[in-house]
């Protein structure tokens, strides 16, 4: 039920042009895919699409929180690689040990970021860049630079390979639950409001008596934990801990967040739009794969990078225009 007194569709559209644009584009691409390719709506494509993109959804949502505070977390890819190795080592004890273990490891890296940013006052992008290097080195050290095979006897691989109630992959179910919890945290709690307030103005938030340090530390711990979960899905889905994976994941996550309309200057953001952004990016590549399969185009893997960059460019242009329009309106009034 929509309450017509408080919900004005036209107002919503004019305030969130980008969120709306993302959902519309997403729907259009799905429709396009369904009409053009026979297997697009098939169980196999949907399952593998969701399995693969669940990792990007979760790190994007973690990144969204960090970006809302005006920060950035460049370490997520390496942390996911590190935790995939941890998860693989813990896999004989089952998912009930491996999942919390790997997520804790991720939170550990998040804690390093939080201390660097909050206590040592190091700019987020440098702090997390250093963690990115450290986690990458750490992953290679603990794995001996080898992929670490998981224990196929335990229930560990269920997470990335089987479906809950034979409908949805476990990975997307778990990620979905986490995303819903985080949506509630952002929209309904004072912690969430503080996160948004920090991005709006850190000094002002401090003066207002908001617990800025606590909320800032929280977003980095959260992002680390999300990367840890992505690592579990990675190890579970591919049957191995992958110390060399995760290169460029931070970029995909940042792109998803930006595509979702979260302002990179912080202060504005949406969990749902970020999920839509991640799905949209994933879908673009899914469709390109289908086109490759049909032989309409033949893109080498190298094009992926170019397209990803081009995509980010298009979104940034869009955002810049929206912002410029907003400023003009502000000046006019």
């Amino acid at each position: 039920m929509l309450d017509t007194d408080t919900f004005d569709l036209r107002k919503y559209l004019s305030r969130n042009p980008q969120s709306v644009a993302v959902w519309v584009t997403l729907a259009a691409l799905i429709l396009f895919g369904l009409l053009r390719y026979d297997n697009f709506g098939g169980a196999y494509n949907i399952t593998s699409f969701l399995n693969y993109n669940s990792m990007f959804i979760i790190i994007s949502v973690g990144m969204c929180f960090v970006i809302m505070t005006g920060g950035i977390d460049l370490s997520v890819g390496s942390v996911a690689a590190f935790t995939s190795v941890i998860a693989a080592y813990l896999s004989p004890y089952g998912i009930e040990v491996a999942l919390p273990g790997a997520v804790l490891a991720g939170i550990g890296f998040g804690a390093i970021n939080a201390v660097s940013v909050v206590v040592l006052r190091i700019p987020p992008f440098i702090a997390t860049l250093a963690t990115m290097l450290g986690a990458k080195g750490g992953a290679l050290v603990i794995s001996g630079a080898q992929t670490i095979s998981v224990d196929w006897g335990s229930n560990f691989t269920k997470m990335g390979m089987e479906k809950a109630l034979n409908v949805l992959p476990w990975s997307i179910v778990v990620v979905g639950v986490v995303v819903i919890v985080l949506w509630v945290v952002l929209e309904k709690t004072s912690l969430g409001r503080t996160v948004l307030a920090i991005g709006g103005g850190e000094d002002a938030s401090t003066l207002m008596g908001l617990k800025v340090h606590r909320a800032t530390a929280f977003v980095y711990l959260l992002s680390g934990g999300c990367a840890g979960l992505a690592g579990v899905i990675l190890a579970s889905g591919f049957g191995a801990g992958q110390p060399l994976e995760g290169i460029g994941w931070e970029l995909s996550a940042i792109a998803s967040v930006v595509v979702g309309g979260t302002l990179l200057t912080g202060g504005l953001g949406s969990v749902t739009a970020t999920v839509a952004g991640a799905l949209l990016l994933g879908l673009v590549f899914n469709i390109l794969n289908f086109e490759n399969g049909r032989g309409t185009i033949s893109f080498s893997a190298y094009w992926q990078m170019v397209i990803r960059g081009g995509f980010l460019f298009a979104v940034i242009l869009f955002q810049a225009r929206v912002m410029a329009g907003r400023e003009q309106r502000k000046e006019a009034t």
Partner: protein
Amino acid sequence: MTTQDTELKAQQSATFAWGPFLRKNGGLVALAVILVFNIIVTPNFLQMQTLFVNISQVATIAIVAMGMTLVIATGGIDLSVGAIMALAGALAPLIFLSEFGQANPALGIAAAIAVPIVAALACGLFNGILVANLKVQPIIATLILFISGRGIAQVLTNGNLQTFSNPSFSYLGTGKVLGLPFQGWLALLIACVLYLVMTRTTFGRYVLAIGGNERAAELSGGPVKRVKIGVYMICGALSGLAGLIVVAINSASDAARNGNLMELDAIAAAVVGGALLQGGRAPIFGAILGAVIIQLVKYTLLANGVEDEVALIAKAIIILAAVYVQQARKE
């Protein structure tokens, strides 16, 4: 900066208060510590060969770090330097190995140097317009080329390793002047030019003014946009040059590896050299000092059999420590 200078300064420090001295000359002290450590521990450190190897390696880091220093001085950052290196490095062999290049060797070489540099300038222009005109944050603006620049290089070469044998082009990376690597002299020349630009021209003053207070620089009628675009173009061109040198050293161009993680080395070198991430300072020779330190740490770890993975962690700690010291100094 010679070894003697460094040691002399280190000796004088005994009469000073340690804290402020370390904060002010942290880079030089770090350099001295690394040198002494190497002289004692690393076998065959005091050899001409060691000097030669390190200079030929450090030149590329130093050249990129100087461009990065200018960008950082305006309060910006450039993550695309490694990708621009890959792009420039991929273009050069494509040109001098082409039919035109084979038919006109001299013209081919000239084009193989000029075209990649122009392409790198264009990349810098792209970054600069995004940052200056569209007001996109530098991290994000340069992220676009960081992602797609290397992709373009790989698309151009189909991801293949391009090997070649072209002595005149390879001079960029293997030539010697007065017994020392050509690119070392080149880096020094660039440093001198940039130093003059920063200290003697209005452009240089505006770079620092923008970093100090962009709004004030703009209100006082300064050409803020043009200057900002300028620093990204300089940074791009220097990255392109560094990419060419790497290709010349290896007599091969590998788009996947050329300049990989260079943005980290360059940022680390700039910061270790005394650049403030908030902007307002452009220590050009500091960038060279920073590059030398980064290179020597790499060399020290490598020469003593430390694995690459651990070296990554060491680099992470250096970056954090350098920025932390910088922050402390500011406050």
